[in-house]
């Protein structure tokens, strides 16, 4: 390997570390750990954390329920407009979240068609916890759908052929062959969706507003705290950072964990 080549690699790694690592390290080391620990009981933090965990879990569940059929269709069928559907699904990943929130307001707000119909039932979505869940699901859905689709596509067709020769119904094949084989991908996708939902800010504040205990999730609480008490904002940022690192690390470690599981199973046989 040439010296120039190595230098180039080194520069890239160093540059990326400066860009990604330094800011994160700066947040993590800004307040001493004892002070951080003391701030973990802060009511604003506890309330926001509780809300964030509940809403992001609900958003992930919603995405899994609605996204699984879509991922299955995309992985197994060819149909007109498939490319268009793929673009539509990827769009939330690149759209500015504020635009997503605004779009949600125009679709489900009080003056929208859907909003007016809901109003007849005495329901209104903006400014509610449900709005937070919808905003998070909107933004975070692509992660689960693309990972699951990839997992389902990678299932060896020979297994499907074998299932077919044994006269397994398509539903049976999906449940007993495809889903178990794609499960690690689905789990990783769901975890990515969860992590993204946990960090959602722009769509939430635009569509759901900011009210402690109702719509003020951790990212919103961080932003508000930053204007008043920087150390409180740092404590919340560190907690959010730790949660995200935990989730992302589990995704990285999951494959080896699944590998261990498989080997243990094989030994038992």
């Amino acid at each position: 390997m040439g010296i120039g080549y190595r230098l180039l690699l080194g520069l890239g790694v160093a540059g990326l570390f400066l860009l990604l690592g330094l800011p994160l390290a700066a947040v993590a080391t800004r307040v001493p750990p004892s002070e951080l620990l003391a701030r973990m009981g802060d009511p604003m933090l506890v309330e926001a954390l509780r809300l964030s965990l509940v809403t992001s879990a609900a958003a992930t569940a919603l995405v899994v329920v609605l996204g699984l059929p879509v991922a299955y269709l995309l992985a197994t069928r060819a149909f007109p407009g498939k490319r268009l559907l793929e673009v539509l699904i990827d769009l939330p990943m690149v759209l500015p979240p504020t635009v997503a929130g605004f779009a949600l307001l125009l679709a489900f707000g009080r003056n929208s068609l859907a909003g007016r119909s809901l109003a007849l039932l005495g329901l209104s979505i903006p400014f509610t916890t449900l709005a937070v869940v919808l905003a998070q699901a909107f933004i975070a859905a692509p992660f689960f759908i693309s990972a699951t689709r990839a997992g389902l596509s990678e299932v060896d067709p020979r297994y499907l052929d074998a299932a077919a020769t044994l006269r397994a119904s398509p539903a049976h094949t999906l449940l007993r062959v495809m889903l178990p084989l794609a499960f690690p991908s689905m789990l990783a996708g769901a975890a990515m969706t969860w992590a993204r939902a946990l960090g959602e800010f722009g769509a939430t504040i635009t569509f759901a507003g900011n009210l402690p205990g109702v719509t003020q999730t951790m990212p919103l609480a961080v932003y508000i705290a930053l204007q008043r008490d920087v150390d409180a904002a740092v404590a919340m940022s560190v907690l959010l950072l730790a949660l995200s690192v935990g989730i992302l690390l589990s995704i990285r470690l999951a494959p080896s964990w699944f590998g261990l599981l498989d080997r243990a199973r094989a030994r038992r046989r």
Partner: protein
Amino acid sequence: MSPLRALLALAAIGAAPVAAQTGRPAPAVLTVFAAASLTDAFEELGALFQRGHPGITVRFNFAGSQQLAAQLEHGASADVFASADQRWMAEVQRQGLPAGEPVIFAHNRLVVVLPAENPARIERLEDLARPGLKLVLAADAVPAGRYSREVLRRLSRRPGFASDYERRALANVVSEEENVKGVVAKVQLGEADAGLVYRSDVTPGIARRLRVLDIPAAANIVASYPIVALAASGHPAAARAFVELARGPDARAILAKHGLMPPPAAP
């Protein structure tokens, strides 16, 4: 300098590319850091200044006063600073950045805004305490939010208002927006029934989408806007001229047009 402060400084430099790039070039550029609520009024004032000072281009950096103060503190170069809040001007003074004493050139006050269709049929300030209504305020961490709560407190002590007016109005709050423009947006879209904002937020462009309820002066808050030339300015004479223009007679009409109240005329 702590790491976070260093990062803020970097962000400040990034946010002021005009100042960073120009240095001291041949065509003079006057960089004015001004509170976001001054955007429309100062665009107009800047054009007026350029007409009176050929060869000088005025560039603005509009942002929240607290952000501008942080940017200045971390070395962003600017010639003039106009704040929406005396607190942030004091912060900049504490750093020794101004080239003189700040002067108050404008006042702002709060109003209640309603969507033009007025879905909750609000006719009087008393109606804000009606249960089930959707009220949006700025978060109490931002000046507008602090002022809004103070106004509700003062109103509940006025004759004709219930003594629990403040509590009941606050119970109607469905969102505490991270800045006052967020309040304007939620009301303008008709998602909220009412909101408290600065009079200057009801800009000509959106006035037709909003209805305005005035708050009596006795219960209202008056926000004062100080302006000052900065010591680091590369064009001290032009910077002083801009400050003079902002507090002068020509600016009064412009400020008033944009919902800001000029201070009482000098005797």
